[in-house]
C-alpha cells in the first residue's frame, strides 16, 4: 500500500461514486423513467478504479456495454453522464448515445461500446497513435470474459504484439457472458493462458482487491509506457446485478449474489484494509460516502429536470461536414 492519503481518498471516492451511481440507477430504472438497455457495473469498481488511477487524461481507454464504471474512473463528468443516461439534450453526448455509448474525448475516454469485442481494436489504434506521438501515452481496453471469444479481439492483440504497441488488454472475468458461465464458453484453462499465446505478457489477478489491481496495473502500464509492447491481465470479479437491468438472474447459483455481497464486495474489502492499516479513519470514509450521495442525488435531480433533445437534433452530428 504505497499510496498517499489523498490517493487513497480519491480511489475510495471513485469506487463509491460508481457504486452509488449504479445503485441509484437500479432504483430509477425500476420506475420506468430511463429508456433503453442498461448494464450495471456495481461489484467491479475496484477494477475500473485500480486501472484508471494509473492513467492520465493523455492516456486512452475503450470500454464496454457495462461502461459506467470505466467512464467515471477515467474522469467523465458524473452529472453529464446521468443526464446522458436519461437521454437529455445537455447530456455528455447530447442524448444521442445513452448508457452504451458514453464517451468523452477530452479525458481520453473513447467510448463505452455496444458491440462485445468492439473496443480492443480501437484501443490498439489509439496505442498506435500514442506510439507515434512519442509522449509515453498508453491505451487500455476493458473487456469482459465474453469479449475474449470475439475474433477481432484476437486480431487486435496480435497486431499490438507485432507492432510492440503501448496497450494493455484488461479482461474482467465476472463469470458470465450474458447468461452463460465463462467455464462453458472459454475452452482454454483461463483467459490469461489464452492471451499468453499471442506473445503478450499476461497476468491473472484478484479483481476484488483494489490494491492488487492497482499494483498489477502499475507494473503493466509502466511496461507498456516504456516501449516493451502490450500486456494483458485477467481479473476475477463479479457483478452485483444482471447482464442487463431486468435480467432475473435465474442462471446464477442460489446464494451466489448474497455471498458476493458479503465476501467479495470490493468497497468493503477496501474499507477494512485501510482501517486495519490505520490509513484512513472511518470518519474520513463516511464523509466521502456523504459527499458521493449528495453528488448522485444532485445528478439525478438535474437529469430529471434537464431538457429533452428536439426532433431537429436527429440529423446533427452525423458528419463534421456533408
Amino acid at each position, binding site marked *: 500500500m504505497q499510496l498517499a492519503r489523498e490517493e487513497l481518498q480519491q480511489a475510495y471516492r471513485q469506487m463509491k461514486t460508481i457504486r452509488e451511481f449504479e445503485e441509484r440507477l437500479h432504483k430509477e430504472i425500476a420506475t420506468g423513467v430511463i429508456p433503453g438497455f442498461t448494464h450495471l457495473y456495481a461489484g467491479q469498481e475496484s477494477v475500473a478504479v485500480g486501472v484508471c488511477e494509473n492513467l492520465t487524461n493523455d492516456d486512452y481507454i475503450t470500454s464496454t456495454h457495462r461502461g459506467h464504471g470505466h467512464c467515471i474512473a477515467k474522469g467523465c463528468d458524473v452529472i453529464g453522464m446521468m443526464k446522458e443516461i436519461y437521454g437529455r439534450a445537455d447530456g455528455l453526448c447530447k442524448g444521442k448515445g445513452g448508457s452504451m455509448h458514453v464517451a468523452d474525448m477530452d479525458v481520453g475516454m*473513447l*467510448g463505452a461500446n455496444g458491440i462485445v469485442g*468492439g473496443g480492443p*481494436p*480501437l484501443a490498439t489504434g489509439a496505442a498506435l497513435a500514442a506510439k507515434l506521438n512519442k509522449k509515453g501515452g498508453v491505451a487500455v481496453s476493458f473487456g469482459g470474459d465474453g469479449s475474449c471469444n470475439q475474433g477481432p479481439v484476437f486480431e*487486435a492483440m*496480435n497486431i499490438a504484439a507485432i507492432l510492440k504497441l503501448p496497450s494493455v488488454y484488461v479482461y474482467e472475468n465476472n463469470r458470465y457472458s450474458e447468461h452463460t458461465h465463462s467455464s462453458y464458453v472459454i475452452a482454454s484453462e483461463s483467459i490469461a493462458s489464452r492471451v499468453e499465446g499471442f506473445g503478450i505478457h499476461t497476468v491473472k489477478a484478484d479483481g476484488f482487491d483494489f490494491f492488487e489491481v492497482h499494483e498489477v496495473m502499475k507494473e503493466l502500464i509502466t511496461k507498456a509506457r516504456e516501449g516493451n509492447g502490450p500486456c494483458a491481465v485477467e481479473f476475477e470479479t463479479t457483478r452485483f446485478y444482471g447482464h442487463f437491468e431486468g435480467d432475473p438472474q435465474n442462471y446464477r447459483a442460489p446464494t451466489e449474489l448474497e455471498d458476493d455481497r458479503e465476501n467479495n464486495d470490493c468497497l468493503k474489502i477496501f474499507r477494512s484494509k485501510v482501517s486495519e492499516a490505520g490509513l484512513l479513519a472511518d470518519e474520513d470514509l463516511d464523509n466521502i460516502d456523504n459527499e458521493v450521495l449528495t453528488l448522485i442525488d444532485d445528478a439525478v435531480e438535474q437529469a430529471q429536470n434537464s431538457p429533452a433533445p428536439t426532433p431537429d437534433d436527429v440529423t446533427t*452530428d452525423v*458528419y463534421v*461536414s456533408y
Partner: protein
Amino acid sequence: MTETTFREALTDTLHQEMARDENVIVMGEDVVGGTGNPHVEPDFVGGVFGVTAGLYTKFGVERCIDMPISEAGIVGTAAGAALAGKRPVAEIMFCDFMGLCLDQLMNQAAKFRYMFGGKATCPMVLRTTYGAGMNAASQHSQSLHPIVTMIPGLKVAIPSTPADAKGLLTTAIRDDDPVIFFEHKTLYTISGDVPDGDHTVPFGKARIVAEGEDCTLVATGRMVSFCENAAQALSEDGISCDIIDPRTTSPLDEDAILDSVEKTGRLVVVDETPPRCSFAGDIAALAASEVFSSLKAPIKQVTAPHSPVPFAKELEAAYVPSPAKIKDIVEQTVNYK
C-alpha cells in the same frame, strides 16, 4: 497537367499527402511487402496493386505499416488511431473482404461522431478495390459501394479517371469524416491528364462527363467509360446523352442528376451491382419522386443480374453491363412511345 496512370495518380497522392501532414499513415496487407523476410529488402511490393509503392522507403516503418491478414484488426486499428488524432489510410485489398471488418466500419467508425454527441472525429480513409473484369470470381469481384453508401456517417468516393483519383483521394485524406474509397481494379492502368501539385475534388459535386439532349446517363467508376463508349455509338444515330458521374455516392450531388433529367426527360442509370436495394435503384427513385413530370419515358436501370459474380470469361462478360447493352437500353428509352 501530366499524363499519368490511375495507379500512379493514387501513389503520387499518397506521397504528397504523407509529405504534407505527418499524421497521415498508411496501413494494410502487403502495403510494404517483404517485411520480416531476412533475405529481401522491404518495399519491393508496395501493395498487391502497387499503389503504395515507395512509401515505406520514403516515410519509414512507422508511417507505412504492413499488417497481418486481419481485416477487422486493420480497420479497428485505423479507426482507433483516427479517434486519437491520426489520419490513417487503411487498405482492404478487395472490398469483398469488408465482410470481415464491417462491424468496425458500420458500428464503430461511422457512428463515433453521432453517438458521442459531435465531440469525436474519425478522419480515416479506407481504400479498397472493387469490380468485375479480371475473372476473379465471386469473392474478389463485387461492387459493394451500396452497402456502405447506406450507412450514415460514412462518405463514399468512386473515381473514374486518373485526375479524379488524385483529386478525390486528396479530399478524402484531408476530410475529417471516415471515407470509403473504391478503386476499380481494371482502371489502374488507364492513363489521363492529371493536374500537377495540389488538386482536390470536392465531395458531392458530380462531373459532367458529356452533354447531350436526349437522355441522361448516370454511372460511376468503370461504368463511366462504358457509358462514354455507348454514347459515342449512339451519336452516330443522332442520339446525344448527358453523362453524369456523381464521383461520390455519399454525399450525392442530387441537383446535377435532377437538373439533367429535367433537361433530357429520360434517365438510364448504369451500375455493376445487382439491382435490389442498389445505387441504380436509389437514383431511379430519386428522379421518379422529384422530377416525375419531366419524364418522357420510364426510367431504366442497367445493372448486373441478381447473382454472384461468375468466374468464366463468357459468364463474367454476360454479368457486367456492356456498352452494347447500355446503347440498346438508351435507344429503347429514347424511342419509347
